[in-house]
């Protein structure tokens, strides 16, 4: 069992039979009142976030959750196939589980897969991916003002907004959490 001193981001706990990961927490103690940890939990199955106050002395049950480094191999229909880098076992995961970032996944991308009772329940991509631009209209010459952007398609098929100076063939850095362009990468 965990107690409040074990609380940290990423801790996996079981509540009402569901696995949760802790995404945020704050220690709260009014001067003459009881201490507690205001904690946000994300349900690993549904993604729903709940907030609970965990009081000092209260226990949390560890969830049978395992995290594995896996490599993305290829898409197959609506599913994605991953490989465990330690034993070469393959796992098929539904695209839904990955959320919006699935269209930023390039073959061989290293990911972190979370298993609950041996079933894959969550996939974390690297924060940044580097992808080549395969299609984009040329920028309007002379228009260099800061925030003007245009759409560009990258090699995985995803469309992202990029600055006007980006051209086909450029490699760009993209934040997988927001789908946002970060910078152009010199080759």
């Amino acid at each position, binding site marked *: 069992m965990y107690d*409040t*001193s074990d609380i940290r981001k990423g801790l996996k706990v079981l509540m009402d039979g569901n696995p949760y990961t802790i995404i945020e927490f*704050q*220690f*709260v*103690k*009014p*001067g*003459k*009142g*009881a*201490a507690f940890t205001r904690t946000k939990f994300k349900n690993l199955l549904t993604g729903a976030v709940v907030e609970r106050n965990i009081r*000092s*002395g209260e226990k949390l049950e560890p969830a049978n959750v395992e995290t594995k480094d896996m490599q993305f191999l290829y898409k197959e229909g609506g599913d994605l196939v991953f490989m465990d880098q330690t034993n070469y076992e393959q796992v098929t995961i539904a695209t839904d589980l990955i959320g919006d970032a699935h269209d930023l996944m390039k073959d061989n991308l290293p990911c972190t897969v979370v298993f609950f009772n041996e079933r894959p329940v969550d996939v974390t991509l690297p924060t940044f991916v580097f992808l080549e631009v395969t299609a984009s209209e040329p920028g309007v010459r002379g228009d260099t003002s800061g925030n003007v952007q245009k759409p560009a398609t990258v090699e995985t098929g995803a469309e992202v907004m990029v600055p006007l100076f980006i051209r086909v063939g450029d490699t760009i850095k993209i934040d997988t959490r927001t789908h946002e362009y970060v910078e152009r990468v010199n080759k």
Partner: protein
Amino acid sequence: MRGRVLAVDRSVTPAVAIIRGERADVRLPARDAWRPGDLVDGGEVVRAGGEGDFPSPRTETARLPRTRLSNLHARAKAVAALRAFFVERDFVEVETPLLVPSPGLEIHLDAVSAGGGYLITSPEYQMKRLLAAGFERIYQVCRCFRGNERGPHHAGEFTMVEWYRAFDELEAIIRDTEQLVAHVVDAVSGSSTAHIHGRAVDVTPPWPRMTVRDAMRTWAKIDVQGDEPAGALRDAVRAAGIDVDDAAAWDDVFFAGFLARVEPAIAALDRPLVLEDWPAPLAALARRRADDPHTALRFEAYVGGLELANAFDELTDPVEQRARFEEDLRLRRERGRGIYPIDEKLLAALAEGLPPCAGIALGFDRLVMLATGAERIDDVLAFTADEL
């Protein structure tokens, strides 16, 4: 100029180095021999840096970035200003032991055990014994220790400023507090504005005041009597739309409402707030009002939502004090918390005769946060517990 070379940029001509001096990071033309991590003095390398990339996360240079170094300079100014403030008002600085046989019995505090005794959670008991011995105005700046407290505003080892005035009342302590905070903020920042979480708070005395009952009524729409059973207060808190456990004790129910509605409202104020007249169940070591036994003579000072200080018109009745200690012990047993011995020497001092007095404990680290605008208590400490 002397200090450590933080970085060298040789892509420009002439090459530029950034040197960490004691009080500032300075850009200088770089000498050819300079490498990041070197200590230089008057242009010469007096001590070469280690191998590998600099600064690695393990270096002291990385551990204490410039903002934290500046906060520590500010902290030194703050403590000097604080001592000057008390000296000018004829307070005597005292030092009482950190290692004691009987730490505070307050039910929500865990003492840290050490050397067959405990480290103090506050210097209160020993300072009161000094009042019984004849001191009238005493203050202390000391470390206090509280187990299992760690957060953006809490460190397990922190610095408390505690002061007492014998033959005086809370009114004098409120004035001390307002003036002390304004004085320290001015000494550090040259202004009357404290900063916390991106907000500016004008700390010029006198500060607005409000009773706890008014604050609960205004911001939480909850009427608190102070003598109602926990169940009745729970109904009132739930009626205000706040979730609370069936089994919660009176004080837990109160704080559920207070933390949900009152504290955020106080945090949004651009002035400090003296929150006074606490309900009797939250009296702790405060005297009850003669004209209203459901109200304790206690105040808390908030600045920008940060709970900065807590004051009591001190309980001096040894009989009631013993009863409260025993009730605290009973609750500690019931809740499975550590059991500490009652401080009989404090009770004996009360029996001998403690003058009427008022006292306050103020979180010095938090005061430095307000004066510097630091966001976390860690940013005003030279070392956190994790850094040892």
